[in-house]
């Protein structure tokens, strides 16, 4: 088995198909627990600590009542699995000690912001871009520039 150097632990994409640190946000897409076809779009903003959660049709999440809903907690958990606590903490600018963090949920008490709406479409289109990568045909042509990319 070939192991990644960066991914601290294997992450399963079933519940949270997409998470990324991008443009100053930890953002992603979280599957609904009840409805197979529904997804929630969630984010935390670096610095301000603001967050939001809505369906991809921009309907606010019912669980969001001034504090992060369960989707946002799942997003934090998966973000820490994907990038490691140190990178998430540094990216969001949180006052937490990476070595002591066992799961992303523990970072919740360091989130100082409040709910702040952004268009779900912005994050959702990132998800579509993400999915585009797994839809491009693989190739047998030489890619000499990949000599720069090793991990």
């Amino acid at each position: 088995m070939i192991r990644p150097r960066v991914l601290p632990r294997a992450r399963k994409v079933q519940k949270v198909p997409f998470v990324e640190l991008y443009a100053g946000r930890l953002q992603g897409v979280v599957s609904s627990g009840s409805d197979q076809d529904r997804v929630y779009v969630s984010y935390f903003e670096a610095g301000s600590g603001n967050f939001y959660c809505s369906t991809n049709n921009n309907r606010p999440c019912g669980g969001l009542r001034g504090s992060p809903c369960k989707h946002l907690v799942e997003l934090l958990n998966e973000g820490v699995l994907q990038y490691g606590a140190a990178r998430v903490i540094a990216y969001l600018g949180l006052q937490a000690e990476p070595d002591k963090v066992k799961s992303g949920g523990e970072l919740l008490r360091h989130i100082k912001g409040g709910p702040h709406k952004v268009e779900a479409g912005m994050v959702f289109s990132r998800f579509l871009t993400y999915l585009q990568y797994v839809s491009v045909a693989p190739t047998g042509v030489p890619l000499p520039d990949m000599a720069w990319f090793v991990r």
Partner: protein
Amino acid sequence: MPLHPLHGPPGLLDLKSVPEPVTHTAGLLAQLDEVFESGFGRLSSANLQTLASLASSFAGTPLAEPLQAAIAGLGRSEFVDRHFAVIAAARAAAHGAMHDALVAQACAALSRPRPELEVFAAAPAQEAPPRAAVLLESVRQWLMELAIAGFANLEVGALLPFQATLDAIMAEPALVRHAALLSGFLDELLTVFPAHGKPEVPRLRWVDLWARSMVLSLAPPAPVATREVKGELRVFATDLRQHDHVVCLVAFGALHEPGKPPRVVRTSVSAFKVDVLQGEDLAGLLNEVGGKLLEAIAGGQGLKIAGMLLHATGDLVWQESRAEVLPAKLKLAEEAAAVLTTPTALRPSARPEDRHPAVIEELVWLPAEAYAATGKEPREVSLGGSPFPLASERVPVSDDLPLAELAGSKGLVALLRFDGGRWSLQPVMIDKGKPRMVGTSLQSARAKARGGNLATLKERAGKLLRKKS
């Protein structure tokens, strides 16, 4: 198979020093790269001096005049992409010259001829898709903006709009090389930006990626001359390259064509991916394009090929439908020793426009008596008592090729590499009685990859991307 004498490359220790012109050029380029860090938008007098000495180092070459004009233009704050194209071409030419000097040094040390491009009939005329030219113009524009701002001063707002161009490039099969390079480059930039405080800029690396992208985007890709080959391919070494969005398995092997002496070729299978696809999912990704190659690598078997295309660089374009896995298990160490001990000039190399010290990968075979290594994570091998660096940072973390296996091994295939101003050896096959190389586990991982992350994401993509279009 004839038994070849198993004496190791005697001259590797000659590579403890580096030719003076190479060091000199590296120094000059390091100064140029400082300009890329601070930005062409605010040229200091020191920057202008650097550019002037770059120009004078090209005196008497075809680049001298365009370079003079470009530097004069940039000095007057004329920000047009052709000026930056000339700077990129000059930087690439300097790296090409370093590459050639280093390959000459390596080949002299190893007492082998320099690699040559195979001579083919002219390439078939073929128009690049019209969209390619427009997309490459956008790439050059973006690269110019990066250079004007300087890598230390990038704003995330200058990076994000490029994603739309990249999405379109990904959808254009003629630009697959661009897609692989630019998606890796953009990823790296977005890992650092937005930066809190002073960003850490891997200057040489980023300017390399910048210049590479610029040179590759000067014109739509020209058709490549190839010839059809048939015969048997015996893969004896592999390497894995990847960033968050591409995984690429490179295989080196002996090609036995009827009526010709065996020669070394290189082939590769690559797939686009996302960061979360790792480990077993790599097998699922590569299976579609190279399942038979994975099978042959896992089993140490040969591949019968017919009608596959070979580039002048010794790169075989992998096509599943033209390959058949042969049942017999091969003695891969003997195979490697036979073609690598005194290789011919026809072996994997780079096109002139692609030459750069980072793409040097001269294959060497070291028999057991030629080297010794100890420890769990060896950083060097001993060659007759003298230490020689291992490029261990290039070896993927895997059970397939743990470097601890070097101790007590019976032979070794390595890529001779040049990085960080010195030569090093990257093991790509360790003979432990059975060959150890990266990718041997991918065949058995294919089954486990089913129903994993790849399947889930493919299913989502199938639903959502269809809905979108």
